[in-house]
């Protein structure tokens, strides 16, 4: 059988369901291996607090009944929603500049939710006109196989257990928390902030700090200034963002590039920060801004930056950021994970 032309076939069914005489041409999702795939869970993308309460208190059957009863009511946006909207804005710009390229973001809804919730999720995606055409609703089964099948570059979920499982399988993942207050974030520029140690870098230096204290840490970092740190779970995602940034630079759009990255680290500019910058340089990577806080709280700085998402391995920083209005995501990696992670909703209850 001749392989159908995927591009047109995808929008073909749409003409029928849209009932339009001149159907709007929807772009085709890229092939997974070419794209930067962001897998997002249903509770990270949408607010399902009320439904989650019903599930926890009344069980699966009542939860599913409720979802079906409210099928035509779209969910309210969840913590990852602004991030996903900003990602789509980047895609729009990329398609304008490179109409035939498949080097784009691809957002996949990746949820262990039951397919009974499927229609409500699809209705919600339609309501906000999100460009999400791919989804896996696994009815309770593990997501790991699907994350790998989609070559997921990043997995965002509200469920810390799933995120931990993904990290252990080598997939870049983070637990997304809702901010304590709403912050206006830019619509036309995607801003992503990263902690350094145990996020972009390995946790090797953090181990030294925890075992031997601050002085030993400084000593060690100075002595090894020119030895690049090993990479951490989100290095690949920064790299992917960098590749897309290059595409804008190539078209003369460095100044108003719709992607901006930030390093927000407790290291200090004068000393331990050097090793961080040298490591990034050795990898051929950079962040647009590097903020060395020398141990000061990250919340106020992030409030100024207004990123769509901030990744950190320590709950202390995640909570601090969320309190001041930043969508913060916990990366459960490295030595800082000794204490049991709180769930997203516990944090929300603490903040509000």
């Amino acid at each position, binding site marked *: *059988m*001749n*392989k*159908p*032309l*995927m591009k*047109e*076939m*995808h*929008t*073909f*069914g*749409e*003409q*029928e*369901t*849209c009932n339009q005489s001149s159907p709007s041409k*929807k772009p*085709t*999702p890229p*092939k*997974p291996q070419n794209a930067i795939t962001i897998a997002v869970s249903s509770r990270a993308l949408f607010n399902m607090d009320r439904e989650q309460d019903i599930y926890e208190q009344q069980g*699966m*059957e009542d939860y*599913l009944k409720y979802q079906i009863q409210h099928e035509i009511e779209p969910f309210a946006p969840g913590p990852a929603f602004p991030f996903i909207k900003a990602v789509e804005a980047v895609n729009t710009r990329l398609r304008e500049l490179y109409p035939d390229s498949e080097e784009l973001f691809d957002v996949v809804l990746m949820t262990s939710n*039951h*397919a*009974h919730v*499927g*229609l409500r999720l*699809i*209705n919600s*995606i*339609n309501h906000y006109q999100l460009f*999400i*055409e*791919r*989804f*896996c*609703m*696994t*009815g*309770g*089964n593990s997501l790991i*196989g*699907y994350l*790998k*099948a*989609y070559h997921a570059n990043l997995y965002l979920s509200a469920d810390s257990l799933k995120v931990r499982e993904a990290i252990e399988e080598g997939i870049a993942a983070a637990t997304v928390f809702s901010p304590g207050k709403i912050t206006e974030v830019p619509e036309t520029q995607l801003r992503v902030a990263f902690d350094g140690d145990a996020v972009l870098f390995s946790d090797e230096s953090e181990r030294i700090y925890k075992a031997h204290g601050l002085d030993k840490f400084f000593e060690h970092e100075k002595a090894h200034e020119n030895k690049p740190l090993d990479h951490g779970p989100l290095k690949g995602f920064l790299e992917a963002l960098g590749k897309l940034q290059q595409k804008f630079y190539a078209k003369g759009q460095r100044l108003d590039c719709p992607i901006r990255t930030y390093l927000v680290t407790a290291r200090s500019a004068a000393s331990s920060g050097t090793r961080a910058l040298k490591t990034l340089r050795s990898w051929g990577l950079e962040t647009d801004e590097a903020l060395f806080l020398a141990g000061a709280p990250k919340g106020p700085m992030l409030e100024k930056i207004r990123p769509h998402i901030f990744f950190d391995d320590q709950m202390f920083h995640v909570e601090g950021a969320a309190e001041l209005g930043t969508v913060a995501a916990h990366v459960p990696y490295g030595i800082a994970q000794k204490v049991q992670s709180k769930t997203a909703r516990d944090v929300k209850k603490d903040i509000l």
Partner: protein
Amino acid sequence: MEDKKNYTGPLMIALQYNDLFDLDSISTSTDTDALPNGRAFTFIKAVQTVNERLVEQNKSDCLLFEVILISKECSEEIKMKVDESVKHYGLEIGKFFFCKKEELINTLQSNKVKLFLSTERDDVYEALHTGIPAALLYDQADDHVLNQLKVIFSGDVIGFSEDSLDGLSEFGFSETQIETIKTAKICMKEFAVLIGQMRRRFGQENSPLCTCVLTSWGSRNVCASALKTLREWGLDVDEAFCLAGAPCSPILAVVKPHILWDGGLLNMS
């Protein structure tokens, strides 16, 4: 329009014996041994689990699976080995039919088979083309351990409108292929209705039967249309996948279905 209440059990499924047993590795010297397992083995075990659970709930349930074996052509020796092997593994096979290749379709029709399951795509599509409900027996690894029967319905076959399906000729599908796809949708219905009834006998969790929709080409709205249609037929599926043109094989390798209703539409690259 057939009233779905007229659909009753048993749910008869026909298998080919060369899917049940692995005949390629037969050696004539060991003729006392049973035939080695084939690709349909985990399927049969899963079907038996569902039946056991159905009977557990209701001893006189008549909506059960029934499996019959069909063979296209084989020697007397093989016939005997098949018979012995079925007994050896304790498989619950209702009937055996040994017929010529040309008689396959007639045999299926006269036995009112509700599903013909085969790993041979050509056999499946030929059967569909004559109006016999047929689906692919997914070729999965033997170590598939779940005691759960998994069925995938194609969201494209169910969700695309009649006009959309006609328009597939623009994409290189032949008339025959398009007719096969349309027939698949009609044939699927009775099977889906019965599976829906079976599924409702179990709760959301710990069910020995798991149903899925997989939309390979269509958009999310095509998938939504498929979900709604299946619901009208009495089946609310457990899992749903929408690929929007992404390769199917990696996803199927994770879902690991037994029964795959694709009607010839799947993107298997």
